[in-house]
């Protein structure tokens, strides 16, 4: 009894540490401390659980922990900042499968009630969907699977039927827990559902789905908490669940789409009724771009996923320093869905030592876009597409964008005229004040840096 009390008191302390940790994540100045505090909470919760009298054998725990620590520490140390989205996706999945297994193990406890069986089923369902869904997301993000949406006829019908089958199987499981068949079927069905949910999601929608899976991994832990009657799992799990839902919502808003639309409609049905784009594409050499930049008083850099692909963040920072030395003001405009996960660009630029107070959000930069002499668009496309503002027939119409076209001149660094992930043509490229600088973004920026240095 004494140990149970001690364990539960420590769980309360751990919960407080998690909450403080998340609170400190509210500002870049305190965020690192917040993360450490949250980790201390986790350490406390794990160490105190080991005192539990139900644990009689520590060998297997040790084995699991040694393997987990080795893999986790190695991955965390080695992963490139550009590969962060796929790593987070994979870790989400691991959280999901762990909760599924915890739910499964909970079946062995005596005195199963209908409610406990329901929560066990839910941990298996959510955990399974999180696991396979995250694996598919990981495959798409790391380009091991095609990034395009995979669609087929009657997809919604199949997915609806699958969901129904899942619930039916759940009901059978709850009323016949002694038959192993329903348990195995629940595992298989939830795993299938996870795959089917994520395959129709395209590359550009990844920030939404990765946030959603993040939320699911929390909810799975929450369900497992109910299954084993453990309050710290419920508290921590629902904090994560809420966090994921908020991020999902922010991402959806930034694309002017509802979650249902992202999940079910496999973006990309392009409506060509928007009319022809007027104007001509004007190319510019890096050398000529240098003369414009040398004379510029203010420059705004608008990065997108292309910057990550080209690994151009360090040379961007070099250019920023040279411009600043030249008496020019430099700012960065970050769209909420730039990149493949929320905040991806900020991390890449932080890696290149760009101070975070230069990174401005869309709503802060748009009102003063007219005052910038040059806007440099690096590997971004849909997030600066004026069709979102002007062409009612466009699939991205209504999406909030960074109004790059309002700057006095716009340089677009792009490999070729190929369209963005949404598969749309971008009227920005045809504007009078736009100059296209073709080629690898990193290469172009290096040439600009060389011009400045000589």
């Amino acid at each position, binding site marked *: 009894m004494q140990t149970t009390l001690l364990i539960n008191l420590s769980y309360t302390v751990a919960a407080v540490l998690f909450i403080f940790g998340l609170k400190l994540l509210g500002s870049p100045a305190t965020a690192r401390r917040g993360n450490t505090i949250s980790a201390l909470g986790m350490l406390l919760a794990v160490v105190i659980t080991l005192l539990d009298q139900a644990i009689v*054998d520590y060998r297997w725990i040790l084995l699991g922990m040694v393997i987990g620590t080795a893999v986790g520490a190695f991955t965390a140390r080695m992963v490139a900042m550009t590969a962060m989205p796929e790593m987070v996706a994979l870790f989400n999945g691991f959280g999901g499968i762990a909760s599924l297994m915890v739910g499964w193990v909970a079946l062995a406890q005596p005195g199963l009630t209908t409610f406990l069986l329901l929560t066990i089923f839910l941990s298996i369902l959510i955990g399974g969907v999180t696991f396979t869904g995250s694996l598919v997301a990981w495959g798409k993000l790391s380009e091991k699977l095609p990034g395009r949406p995979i669609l087929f006829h009657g997809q919604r019908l199949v997915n609806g039927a699958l969901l129904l089958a899942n619930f039916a199987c759940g009901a059978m499981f709850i009323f016949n827990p002694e038959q192993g068949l329903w348990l195995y079927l629940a595992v298989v069905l939830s795993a299938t559902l996870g795959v089917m949910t994520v395959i129709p999601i395209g590359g550009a929608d990844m920030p939404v789905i990765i946030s959603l899976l993040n939320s699911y991994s929390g909810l799975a832990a929450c369900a497992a908490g109910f299954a084993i009657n453990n309050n710290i799992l419920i508290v921590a799990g629902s904090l994560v669940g809420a966090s994921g839902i908020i991020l999902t919502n922010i991402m959806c808003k930034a694309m002017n789409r509802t979650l249902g639309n992202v999940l079910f409609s496999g973006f990309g049905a392009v409506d060509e009724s928007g009319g022809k784009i007027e104007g001509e594409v004007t190319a510019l050499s890096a050398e000529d771009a240098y003369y414009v930049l040398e004379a510029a008083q203010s420059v705004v850099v608008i990065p997108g996923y292309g910057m990550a692909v080209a690994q151009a963040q360090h040379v961007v920072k070099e250019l920023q320093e040279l411009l600043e030395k030249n008496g020019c003001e430099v700012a960065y405009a970050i769209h909420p869905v730039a990149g493949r996960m929320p905040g991806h660009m900020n991390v890449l630029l932080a890696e290149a*030592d760009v101070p975070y107070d230069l990174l401005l959000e869309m709503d802060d930069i748009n009102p003063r876009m007219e005052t910038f002499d040059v806007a440099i668009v690096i590997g971004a496309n849909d997030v600066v597409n004026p069709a979102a503002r002007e062409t009612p027939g466009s699939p991205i119409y209504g999406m909030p964008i960074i109004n790059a076209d309002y700057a006095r001149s716009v340089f677009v660094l792009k490999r070729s005229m190929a369209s963005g992930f949404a598969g749309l043509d971008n009227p920005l490229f045809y504007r009078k004040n736009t100059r296209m600088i073709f080629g690898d973004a990193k290469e172009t920026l290096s040439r600009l840096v060389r011009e400045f240095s000589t």
Partner: protein
Amino acid sequence: MDLVYLTFILILSIFLGFELIQKVPATLHTPLMSGANAISGITLVGALAGAGSDGSALTVLLGTMAVAFATINVVGGYLVTDRMLAMFKKKNVNK
């Protein structure tokens, strides 16, 4: 009674989570996500009981695997978040 009590905790934590996360600026969304991910590794606490029990071989096997997966989540999540956050610097610091 347990059910009511646990649901009570659930509802309050969800509201608390909404309040806390709403205040996180867009700059920190990636570290927030990987940090939250590490917290979801709390399921490790549940896995320990299975891996350390004297139950059936299946229970121990599932428990051990769950411990391994959840530990990857916890250790990897916290370390990578720390690595990212260490890079965030304010302008006047380096001058």
